């Protein structure tokens, strides 16, 4: 089996191509840093494996996602590389291409976004590039899949890709040093291309240096580098060796581009600049962002999601439950089985399934934001606020993804350059209200604030963000060394998301929710139902004497000051740690109602408007779910920080709910 790696600058369409060339699907979006992990897929024609790597500008990693790519190239040995370059940004992209050619593996250049380049009046000649670089150059439009067939054909026989003959002359001084280093490396087996190692070493690539340090004493090698650097300085050729190497490459690329590129008809990004002048306007930008968010919630809950959800609810409560009832009766199911299926499974899982429309529409909106290019602008708009809080605007991309699900959001934090900022973003992520918490708000908002559902739900999201900002200030001041954060963000051109991509990306996000409904929510529902059915005195007990009531009763006194000190509320919280959706499932089971209308009636009797707000706030804040805890552990590589994230959120939730309930009572609300 051969393996081929996709390498290129961020946001050049590597993952789009990966999705067309393999039968797998990975996350795509329009900002730099969507892919943060190495992804492996099988080529459609069965020719081997394709590896999708995070985008990199050079082999010298700054952020953690770039580290993944650099590490891969150095430690593993793909048979061939496909280097994707953005035709509208050729000069910048080729800087990496030269380093990849020096790496020495057979390489194919995928000249992507030729449509974008053409629209901007830039003509690139693949023939001239091919002739000058000595590697196959294939024009592509990865977004639509145009040209991917040719790539697949070339990759069918990786051995037929010609070996790289490209060699850039770095001048006599440096070439001598390269030879000296190559000579030193001669005895060591299992290293990538020696010339490449020598050059990367001269550029002070930390990953290469680390690799060499493991093998032998690098003192002599570094001595060679120092010597050539002082020689360059004394001849006044360059200030540093890395700078010399870089400018040699840039000079070459510049002359190559003059030959291969026709930019005489080049136009500015007219549409993007016009949109930016409104969307990132110094006064209107932020209010517009808030209006968009509000419209997004309004659409999700009032305009589209709500009515659709009512239809699903009607179906589950009506025809579906009735059908299940009569079917169970006709096959003579025992009372136990009957209750398990109707009260436990249909009640528990069905109670969550009714929210599928809202959740999918929310995912659709997030996908639209991701694909349009607006995400990067949100970071820009939020940066000054975030800077005051000790973080940088880039954290807003993970935060918005977090509204869908916290798990991929924490992964997305990898593209943030500074370790401190990355850690803060990870720790604060659980405060971003994910789609799993949505059913709780929707349920309570429908009961207590029927006229302002969207506003009530939006308020919960805003509360999460506000607490994240406050805690961010607190944490960055007291928990971390005071290093100032940096901020730089590329602003990709806006584009209209394609229906196909939107549908795919919404489905991939929503699929996870459906899978949870069939696994963890189902299992949770069955266990909860069993606990409510059985008690110390046997089966089919009155629910107030069940194990569930005993268990919930243990927690209830603690929750008393928060306004929901009932065993019913208490018993929803612990299973909610597995998956927040189970909170609603548990309520459905406890209150014995297969449909939402019934549940809403019950809730209206147990909660007051004030205690419902307190409860919603508690659910918003109280703990990251099990999957999120797992990914926090993985990304921080520290149990200390993992427990910290659980501990602070629990303390915060208790405090906030206490203030809401007791404060509200003092003000005379109920």
């Amino acid at each position, binding site marked *: 089996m051969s393996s081929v790696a996709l390498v290129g600058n961020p946001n050049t369409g590597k993952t789009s191509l990966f999705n067309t060339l393999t039968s797998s699907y990975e996350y795509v979006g329009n900002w730099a840093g969507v892919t943060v992990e190495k992804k492996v897929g099988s080529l459609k024609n069965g020719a081997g494996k394709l590896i999708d790597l995070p985008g990199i500008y050079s082999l010298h990693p700054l952020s953690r996602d770039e580290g993944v790519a650099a590490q891969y190239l150095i430690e593993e040995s793909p048979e061939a590389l496909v280097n994707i370059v953005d035709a509208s940004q050729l*000069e910048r992209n080729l*800087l990496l291409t030269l380093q990849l050619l020096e790496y020495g593996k057979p390489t194919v250049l995928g000249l992507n976004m030729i449509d974008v380049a053409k629209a901007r009046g830039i003509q690139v000649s693949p023939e001239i590039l091919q002739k000058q670089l000595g590697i196959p150059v294939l024009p592509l439009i990865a977004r639509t899949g145009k040209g991917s067939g040719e790539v697949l054909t070339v990759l069918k026989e990786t051995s037929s890709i010609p070996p790289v003959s490209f060699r850039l002359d770095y001048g006599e001084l440096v070439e001598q040093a390269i030879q000296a280093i190559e000579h030193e490396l001669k005895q060591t087996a299992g290293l990538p291309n020696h010339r490449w190692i020598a050059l990367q070493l001269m550029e002070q690539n930390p990953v290469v240096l680390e690799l060499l340090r493991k093998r032998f004493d690098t003192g002599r090698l570094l001595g060679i580098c120092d010597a050539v650097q002082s020689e360059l300085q004394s001849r006044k050729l360059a200030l540093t060796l890395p700078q010399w190497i870089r400018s040699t490459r840039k000079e070459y690329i510049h002359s190559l581009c003059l030959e291969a590129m026709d930019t005489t008809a080049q136009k500015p990004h007219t549409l993007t600049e016009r949109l930016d002048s409104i969307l990132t306007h110094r006064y209107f930008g932020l209010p517009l962002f808030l209006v968009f968010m509000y419209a997004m919630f309004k659409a999700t809950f009032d305009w589209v999601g709500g009515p659709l959800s009512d239809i699903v609810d009607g179906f589950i409560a009506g025809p579906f439950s009735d059908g299940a009832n009569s079917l169970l009766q006709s096959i003579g199911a025992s009372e136990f089985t009957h209750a398990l299926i109707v009260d436990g499974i249909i009640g528990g899982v069905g109670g969550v399934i009714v929210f599928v429309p809202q959740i999918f529409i929310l995912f659709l909106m997030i996908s639209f934001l991701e694909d349009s290019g607006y995400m990067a602008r949100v970071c820009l708009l939020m940066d000054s606020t975030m800077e005051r809080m000790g973080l940088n605007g880039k954290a807003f991309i993970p935060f918005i993804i977090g509204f869908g699900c916290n798990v991929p959001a924490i992964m997305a934090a990898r593209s943030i350059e500074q370790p401190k900022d990355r850690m803060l973003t990870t720790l604060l992520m659980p405060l971003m209200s994910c789609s799993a918490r949505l059913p709780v708000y929707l349920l309570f908002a429908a009961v207590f604030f029927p006229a302002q559902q969207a506003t009530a739900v939006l308020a919960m999201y805003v509360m999460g963000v506000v607490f994240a900002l406050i805690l961010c200030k607190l944490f960055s001041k007291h928990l971390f060394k005071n290093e100032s954060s*940096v901020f730089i*963000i590329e*602003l990709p051109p806006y584009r209209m998301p394609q229906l196909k991509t939107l549908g795919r990306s919404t489905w991939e996000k929503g699929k996870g929710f459906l899978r949870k409904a069939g696994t963890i929510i189902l299992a949770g529902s069955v266990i909860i139902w069993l606990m409510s059915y059985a008690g110390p005195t046997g089966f089919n007990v009155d629910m107030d004497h069940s194990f569930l009531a005993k268990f919930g009763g243990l927690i209830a006194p603690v929750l008393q000051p928060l306004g929901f000190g009932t065993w019913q509320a208490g018993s929803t919280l612990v299973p909610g740690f597995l998956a927040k959706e189970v909170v609603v499932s548990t309520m459905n089971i406890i209150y014995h109602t297969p449909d939402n209308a019934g549940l809403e009636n019950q809730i209206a009797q147990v909660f007051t408007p004030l205690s419902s707000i307190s409860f919603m706030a508690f659910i918003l804040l109280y703990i990251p779910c099990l999957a999120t805890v797992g990914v926090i552990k993985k990304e921080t590589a520290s149990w200390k920080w993992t427990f910290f994230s659980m501990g602070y959120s629990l303390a915060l939730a208790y405090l906030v709910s206490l203030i809401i309930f007791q404060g509200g009572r003092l003000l005379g609300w109920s």
Partner: protein
Amino acid sequence: MASSSCSLLHLQPGSTGSIYRIEGMNPILRRRLADLGVSEGVKISLKGKGPFMGPITLECNGQLFAIRRKEASRIEVNVS
């Protein structure tokens, strides 16, 4: 025409200058800018300024990006 050098921040939005010197900038940011092709001698345009003294939008080699004002003030440009 005589050329004069000034901080990038003092450019009029929409105008272009060529980078004369970058000094005293955070090294991580300096590297990232170099990755985007921002270095001495290159033409750079100021596109717009963000809200609340927030980041400014720049264009260099056809790539749009944003950095904070404080850092942008480290970039000196020649305007002709």
